[in-house]
């Protein structure tokens, strides 16, 4: 298998692994981009295409297909924030987030959805984002779908996704096929550990190589520590080189100077960088309203083999339960399947000792459904808050309140009913006190009475959004509809942290589309060219 990253490096791409720096240094460029995920990647491509000198700063390592061994023991420490063990402050929510070149796009499950029209409508009404109409945004989504090969996936779903499809069909619940950003996918099922066949059209394989091919410079193992500013302009960015462990600073520092600074460090990292920098925040909005699509999980044993580790992890979904109430009413939820790999499954599963071992012996018959709760629309659902903890690194508080648990119970019931309808012989919510059930009647009674509380009911998240919300005016947001900071003229935020609510869909395509628009507007301005004709 050809490794396009190794080939590119051999051809002279500029990559500096900051853990190898012998001394501190000062670098100048037109634009500094912090982060190489969905937001940073698209920004680097578009800004470098406008002839600007671009530098990318990434905290994680550069890894590529020849490193992607499909082993969890290799993948999680290399490619994920905190080895995949990132948690909210009270430890009640486990957060999966990428931390490598390409960010979460290197390790996501490729599910691609446009921002739903009802979400854009809500943003227009509540946050005055009148420019971001369904019409205006559809062009940008189309651009990115084309570029990243977002297509209908024609291969039949794996047995795990089929449970959702067949159970939903029996119950008359709408089920859809998920579009995926893949080109020549081998249907292996290891997307979460980095694509070993270079089929996934992540930032690692698309926008970042494009930018590096135009002479952009990529720094890895380099943590953006603090923006320096004077008056209303950012003047520099101080970064800390990390040791080869990728965790502790080495003591070497890299200073950047540039005309413009793009922050795209994700919805935990971006607000944290702005907080460390002490940027103006007179309305105290920075780091607030952080959303997670809190996920509850239902695990089933099917009569036949499922082999949930094999085949595209997510190919079917249901939005049926997003449309049962007004968007700001009781929380709706999206249903999807989850891939099963031994470490991810065993650590998520409740219990220990013989009870846990018994479930693990049925690993190949297990099927798992996820319910992603759409947080941030109901007035009671205000999400979480990023603050700075020890070492000035971010900590996320996310209180799980009644409005979440009410939806979680409906979601656990809905998933159990679907799994039994698909023929499950046993179903359990992932919950420390759930005994598991052998029929829908039994599950319905049992789940109705389960105590739903943090740390008893397992809650996870793979979608972090908000914290630098966009709005029409400073009292309601941190940046405007273009991602421009309200107080610092040459600072933009280009990632999922600008969403003023969650999305109700997997976020990658929403980030690609919005950032394609905002990076294009910024590129035109910096290069002194007319703005693009797409609105």
């Amino acid at each position, binding site marked *: 298998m050809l490794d396009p990253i190794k080939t590119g490096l051999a051809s002279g791409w500029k990559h500096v692994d900051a853990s190898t720096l012998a001394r501190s240094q000062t670098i100048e460029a037109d634009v500094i981009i912090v982060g190489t995920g969905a937001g940073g990647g698209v920004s680097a491509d578009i800004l470098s295409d406008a002839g600007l000198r671009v530098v990318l700063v990434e905290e994680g390592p550069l890894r590529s297909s020849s490193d992607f061994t499909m082993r969890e023991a290799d993948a999680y*420490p290399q490619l994920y924030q905190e080895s995949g063990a990132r948690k909210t402050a009270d430890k009640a929510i486990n957060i999966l987030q990428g931390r490598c070149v390409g960010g979460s796009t290197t390790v996501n499950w490729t599910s691609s959805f446009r921002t739903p029209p009802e979400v854009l409508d809500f943003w227009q009404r509540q946050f005055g984002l009148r420019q971001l109409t369904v019409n205006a945004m559809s062009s940008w989504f189309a651009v990115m779908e084309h570029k990243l090969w977002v297509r209908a996936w024609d291969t039949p779903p794996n047995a795990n996704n089929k449970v959702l499809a067949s159970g939903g069909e029996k119950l008359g619940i709408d089920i859809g096929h998920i579009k995926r950003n893949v080109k020549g996918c081998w249907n292996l099922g290891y997307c979460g550990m980095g694509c070993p066949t270079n089929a996934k059209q992540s930032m690692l394989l698309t926008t970042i190589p494009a930018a590096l091919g135009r002479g952009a410079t990529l720094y890895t193992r380099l943590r953006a520590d603090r923006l320096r500013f004077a008056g209303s302009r950012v003047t520099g960015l101080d970064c800390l080189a990390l040791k080869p462990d990728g965790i502790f600073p080495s003591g070497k520092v890299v200073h950047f100077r540039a005309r413009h600074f793009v922050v795209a460090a994700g919805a935990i990292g971006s607000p944290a960088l702005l907080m460390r920098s002490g940027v103006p925040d007179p309305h105290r909005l920075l780091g607030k309203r952080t959303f997670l699509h809190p996920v509850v999980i239902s695990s089933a044993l099917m009569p036949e083999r499922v082999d949930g580790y094999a085949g595209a992890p997510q190919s079917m979904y249901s939005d049926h339960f997003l449309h049962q109430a007004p968007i700001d009413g009781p929380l709706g939820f999206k249903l999807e399947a989850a891939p099963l790999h031994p470490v991810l499954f065993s650590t998520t599963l409740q219990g220990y*000792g013989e009870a846990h071992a018994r479930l693990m012996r049925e690993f190949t018959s297990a099927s798992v459904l996820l319910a992603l709760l759409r947080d941030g629309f109901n007035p009671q659902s205000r999400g979480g808050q990023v603050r700075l903890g020890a070492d000035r690194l971010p900590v996320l508080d996310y209180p799980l309140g009644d409005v979440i648990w009410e939806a979680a119970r409906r979601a656990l019931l809905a998933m159990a009913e679907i799994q039994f309808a698909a023929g499950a012989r046993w179903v359990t919510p992932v919950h420390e006190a759930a005994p598991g059930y052998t029929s829908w009647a039994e599950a319905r009674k049992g789940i109705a009475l389960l105590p739903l509380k943090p740390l008893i009911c397992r809650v996870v998240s793979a979608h972090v959004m908000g914290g630098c919300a966009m709005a029409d005016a400073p009292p309601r947001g941190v940046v405007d509809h273009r991602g421009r900071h309200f107080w610092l003229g040459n600072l933009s935020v280009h990632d999922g942290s600008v969403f003023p609510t969650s999305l109700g869909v997997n976020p990658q395509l929403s980030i690609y589309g919005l950032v394609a628009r905002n990076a294009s507007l910024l590129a035109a301005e910096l290069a002194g060219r007319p703005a693009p004709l797409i609105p």
Partner: protein
Amino acid sequence: MIPSRRQFIRTGLGGSLLLTFAGWLNAAGARPLTTAEREMLGAVSNAMLDGALPAAGEPRRRLVALTVDGIASEVAGLAPATQREVGELFGLLVVAPARMLLAGVGKPWREASVADVGEFLESWRTSRLGLLQGAYAALHDLTFGAWYARPDTWEAIGYPGPPKGYF
């Protein structure tokens, strides 16, 4: 008279003492596992993985030791603050009074049975204190993460491992 573990924890005193005491013990931050910590984690793994481990004897001891090695390398990959917290938890559990009062394990860890440790795990798993529940969850995730990361554990669960082919 020494208060029982349940009384001690119910007062809430257990939680705050746990933090203070552990912070004091581990002022130095992240560090390699001590022999006492390895014994404690061995006892925890021995109970957590009961049913996955072979019955008893030398093979079981060897696999428990491998799991403890795995836990040590997992901890080294955590964020600095989390490494400190985990270090505090480990450092606390090896101190006899904390082992007895907070974990309710009367014997030294190397002599504790699966049943003794199981009772401790169950009490933390179902504790009303988030701190202890969170600590149970950390031990759970670290132990199973270390166990199922190793290819030699896969045959027992029917997992063939990643596909091999034209890579």
